């Protein structure tokens, strides 16, 4: 992977690749600061979906006709592209899912159902999105396993000093997010995986907020599982990825039964395919996978290192400007942060702020961001979040600050 410096990219020119950025909201030019919820899609991805349905659409892996071959080839090529993108050893380690949530549920059910026993410990962190919390609660309820949590410090970092106390031999799984979706904290994933490995725990990294934002190689990270969504990285909704290390996937039973995942079926019993097909029952999201591969091509055309440099500069700039507004509390690390900033103002509740901003074409997110325990940890019921991607600009942040100053004046 060659590295491109952020300074050499025509960031403004990239905006032309996103037709939706020309939209207006309430008569104002759209400022889209909700990419952590879902990113916008470049024309290349929209065209790939259209091309597939116009030229290649058929079901995969079974038809012997021309279109089925085209669809199968495109679908499996997409799997290969995802494998390269995250540095997986083989495409067989890539399972297509509906998204991060389904990926994590797959692990909780197929792996957890087989390997988690009463008395085992599942280690999580206080900053997990509900999608990396609730599946483990359900698993713990089913098996009698216990949950443990790495605390979050006031600056939004994980309390790493607690790791030796928490990461004991009873811990069978350590699941944690790469980048916090409400604090912007970037966790030291490789170090955490190494510590988990040392006690024999399996690791799962929630890469929903990082997969489209920074360079990542699963073999450098050293994780056993990695989960992410296509729609947060320029791809369509309804397609996501579970990476699993080959040996682990091969040790796991299926989770959904149906077509595509079997070798042979008798009335009483069936034999299952190997990974990844064992975990993809039914007709998959073929177009979605192709759209995701196209999104990956698009992102790689810019370069993830450049994207990270650009976005984290924006986020730091936004955090700095927000701190200029009296009565504002900005959450998360002061130094390095992912492409988002969460904040509260004394004058206005996040929902009032978000409603106000929307009337000026500014799309923010207000609420608990599927992080209720974390919100409680910081003593707030919710925050307002501005999240960025490479198509956002410093000028848009300046405009956000103007609008927020007006809002604070209005509600004070």
């Amino acid at each position, binding site marked *: 992977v060659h590295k491109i410096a952020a300074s050499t990219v025509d960031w403004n020119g990239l905006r032309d690749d996103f037709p939706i950025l020309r939209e207006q909201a*309430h008569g104002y030019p759209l400022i889209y600061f909700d990419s952590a919820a879902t990113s916008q899609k470049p024309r290349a991805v929209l065209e790939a979906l259209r091309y597939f349905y116009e030229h290649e659409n058929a079901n995969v892996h079974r038809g012997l006709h021309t279109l089925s071959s085209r669809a199968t080839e495109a679908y499996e090529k997409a799997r290969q592209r995802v494998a390269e993108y995250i540095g997986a050893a083989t495409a067989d380690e890539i399972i297509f899912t509906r998204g991060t949530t389904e990926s994590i549920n797959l692990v909780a059910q197929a792996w957890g159902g087989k390997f988690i026993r009463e008395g085992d410990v599942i280690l999580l962190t206080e900053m997990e999105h509900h999608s990396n919390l609730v599946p483990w609660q359900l698993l713990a309820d089913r098996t009698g396993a216990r949950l443990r949590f790495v605390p979050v410090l006031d600056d939004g970092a994980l309390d790493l000093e607690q790791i030796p106390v928490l990461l004991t031999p009873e811990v069978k799984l350590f699941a944690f997010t790469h980048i916090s979706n409400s604090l912007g904290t970037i966790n030291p994933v490789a170090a955490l995986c190494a510590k988990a490995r040392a006690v024999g725990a399996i690791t799962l990294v929630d890469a929903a907020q990082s997969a489209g934002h920074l360079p990542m190689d699963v073999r450098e990270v050293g994780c056993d599982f990695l989960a992410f969504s296509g729609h947060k990285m320029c791809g369509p909704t309804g397609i996501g990825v579970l990476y699993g290390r080959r040996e682990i996937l091969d040790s796991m039973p299926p989770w959904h039964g149906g077509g595509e995942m079997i070798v042979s079926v008798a009335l009483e019993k069936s034999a299952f395919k190997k990974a990844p097909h064992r975990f993809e029952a039914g007709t998959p999201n073929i177009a979605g996978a192709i759209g995701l591969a196209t999104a990956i091509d698009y992102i790689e055309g810019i370069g993830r290192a450049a994207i990270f440099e650009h976005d984290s500069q924006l986020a730091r700039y936004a955090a700095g400007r927000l701190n200029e507004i009296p009565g504002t509390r900005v959450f998360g690390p002061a130094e390095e942060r992912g492409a988002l900033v969460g904040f509260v103002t004394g004058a206005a*509740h996040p*929902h*009032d702020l978000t*409603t106000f901003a929307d*009337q000026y074409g500014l799309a923010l997110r207000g*609420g*608990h961001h599927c992080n209720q325990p974390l919100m409680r940890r910081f003593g707030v019921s*919710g925050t307002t979040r501005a999240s960025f991607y490479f198509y956002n600009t410093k000028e848009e942040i300046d405009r956000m600050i103007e609008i927020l100053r007006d809002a604070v004046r209005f*509600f004070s």
Partner: protein
Amino acid sequence: MIPEIEELYQEVILDHSRRPRNFGELPEAAVLVHGDNPACGDEIYLAVKFDRDGGLEDIKFTGHGCAISQASASLMTMKLKGKSRGEAMDMLRAFHDLVTNGTSEAPKTLGDLRVMKGVRNFPQRVKCAMLAWRAVEQAFEVGAGEATVSTEPA
């Protein structure tokens, strides 16, 4: 200022959200309802004391939330004090109509509550406006003790 914003956040609403009336504990309350809007994190604790005929002798609230939920609770407590159960439930229906139905004229009986009309342009905020009303409805329902009500039924 944008007209929809001005209509939603009328001066009366901002005033009630900044300085909510009937805000506080009600030691001799017959019912305490915890109203919860989990999607937003808005919370209200509504305390009700009934008169001999089952009407609302006194009504107070505490809690936290957005300007709409706080102002709505404040305005509601002012309006409902002294009202019978029947009057209060008629008013609930009229108020719900006010904040959801774009075509209806606001009935005069609603009085000050009519300032909440702007909510009808913001469907996502209807739950905020209705939270206190759902709590008072629940208070009548249970009659005594503690209860909870949520805008997202489990």
